[in-house]
């Protein structure tokens, strides 16, 4: 078998070298692009962290303002300024309901409803309208 000609070997070597250069170049460019991306992402993160800190700072500011506005002294001042006349109840004004308020109100409502129903039934012919309550449905 004949050995390949010398120039063919040189050509192959040059081609391989070029390929290597392209590969190395691509790697280099890739690394640069990669580093650039890292830089941009890092700086974006820094900006976002700065914005977050800024928002938290403003939130603290608002919270402090809200707290100052709703403290008892400030509310009482507002009550006076706005002439609302709001006052804490006194014991004499308070009616404490023993037992279940719901049951008591329900029985009162039922009493009302049944008496209205009875009245309606007695004077059905006289009334131009009829009172309809939940108990009559």
């Amino acid at each position, binding site marked *: 078998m004949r050995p390949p000609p010398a120039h063919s070997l040189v050509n192959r070597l040059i081609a391989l070298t070029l390929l290597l250069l392209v590969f190395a170049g691509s790697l280099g460019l890739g690394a640069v692009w990669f580093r650039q991306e890292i830089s941009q992402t890092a700086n974006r993160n820094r900006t976002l962290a700065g914005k977050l800190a800024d928002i938290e700072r403003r939130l603290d*500011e608002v919270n*402090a303002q809200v707290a100052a506005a709703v*403290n*008892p002294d400030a509310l009482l001042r507002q009550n006076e300024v706005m002439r609302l006349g709001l006052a804490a109840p006194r014991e004499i004004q*308070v009616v404490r309901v023993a037992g279940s308020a719901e049951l*008591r109100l329900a029985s*009162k409502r039922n009493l009302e409803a049944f008496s209205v129903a009875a009245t309606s039934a007695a004077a059905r012919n006289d009334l131009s309208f009829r009172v309809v309550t939940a108990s009559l449905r």
Partner: protein
Amino acid sequence: MSRGFANNRMTLLAVGVIACFMGVAVRLVFLSVVDREELIRFVDRARRQIVIEHARRGTILDTHGNLLATSRSEITVAVDPWALDEYLSIEKNPAKRARRAAEESVKRARLAGLLGLPTATIEQAFTPALRAIKPADDKRDGKVDGLTKDRWVKVREGVDEPTFDKIAGLNIRGVTSERVYRRVYPGGGLAAHVIGYLNKEGTPVCGAESHLDLYLKGQDGWIESEKDGARRELAQFRSREVTVSDGNDVVLTIDSVVQHIIEEELKDLASKYSPNFATIIATDPMTGAILGLANYPSFDLNNYSKAPLESQRNYAVTDRVEPGSTFKIVAAGAALNEGIVTPFTSLDCGISSIDYKGRTIRLPKEDEPFGRLSVADIVAHSSNRGAAQLAMLLGEQRFYDYARSYGFGQSTFYPLGGEVRGTLAPPAQWDGLTISRMPMGHSVDATPLQIHMAMSAVANGGVLLRPEIIKEIRDPAGRVIRVFPPEKRNQVLRPGTAALLAQLLTGVVREGTAKGFDIPGFEIAGKTGTTQKLVDGKYSSTHHVASFVGFFPASRPEVVLSVIVDDARVPGGIAYGRVVAAPAFHHIAEQLIQYLEIKPVTPATRSFLAMQGGVR
């Protein structure tokens, strides 16, 4: 061209290339080895930076989560007058320079408006000036004359963020700023002695700010990175980073509304009686949680620097008073607990002296003459002689042991520190009269909080608790990381005895020394106290400590309340506990009943329309 010439040329080229490489190599050796340290130092100085990230100090909240102390950013606005000067001098065209100067002048006038300062002040700040520095440090401007350009002229401190946004929007040449965090107290003076404050240097001075600093302060973080020519951080070159850890939030047991109620009452007391000092404390008897603690005089936390030092004292724990008749709960409780007497046992309170251990002892005077009184009446009418006889029935040592067990003469372990122990001498140091005087609250002194906690032990079934002011600690995300449960110190009385004594104490407002200050249905139990103050070593007849310490409802205690007023000035009269302190107690109790929705013990017998569901 001959082969020899070509060979020479190749050799020459090779030598040239090698020489170049050698040159580069030598330079590299110099850069990397010989000058390495100096160059690295230069680069470090020029590019590397360490950015400190300050931890945000935790907030202090009341029991319902209302802010009592928080941190707010404020901006210090300053001016670099030379920056404006340099900006204008860059422009060589006189017309353009004049236009730029005019534009900047208009902006400065707006700046003055935003900062609320006269335009002249701003113009003065923008006038370039030199300042003296140490000649050793004078290398900044190339000349060593002990002068340098003043590039930081402070214009205004404490500018809020919205105002600073407007200032930044003006884009004024030479305006610089520094952001600082300042502690703000939204309630102003609310719970001032409990919260404490941070001074201008950021050092916690007293109260929760100081004692809970470990929880509140957090941990600063830092970032090691590089900066560009404009001093902006190059985030991609961050090499080391210690993350910032913000401070934890502290939740106190204080209730802002309760605190406000007692502070308002203190203001009233102060305006009526101009006392030396006054203290009001409200706690939950079952946990020892302090719902409110206030002193007169007090101060505004946001203006602490203007407050005199006396107003910054937490009198509830730093000052001692003789407890007076409020101390009678010791003798009465101990005698009942030991089974020596019952509420119906009667003692002769009309006698002026009594034989005790072979000696005749003069009994203390009474405010009004009494005959034989039952133990219940001794408590209700605050008989000094009755209390003395109860103590004598117990004996010195047993009486002393009970007084200790009530917490007198020892720290209450108030969590925010600064308290004094009070004085309770052991029997070995007593003179012949002490057994008759101590039961009425003389020869002993205690802080208002000690007196309060002693009464609290009667209210909660005989248990002496540690006063609690810290409810819990929360991390910055709001998770509870530590809770502070009630701490029992010791059992003073059996529960049955404590309940019995509580019922006897209701007699004080029903028929005793504070008659008329009952609230129907709410069983006010309490004890008045009127102590003559020691002035120049003698008991004064004009200076008194007035107190009312009690709780309600007696059979189901929900609040323990103490009102202690030192040296109240009552026009034409004596500052009795029933005159000064009992009305304040009554007024506060009325409000607390509504606010805390305390239900009456005795049911209402009145027929109300509301119970029927309203008018038909």
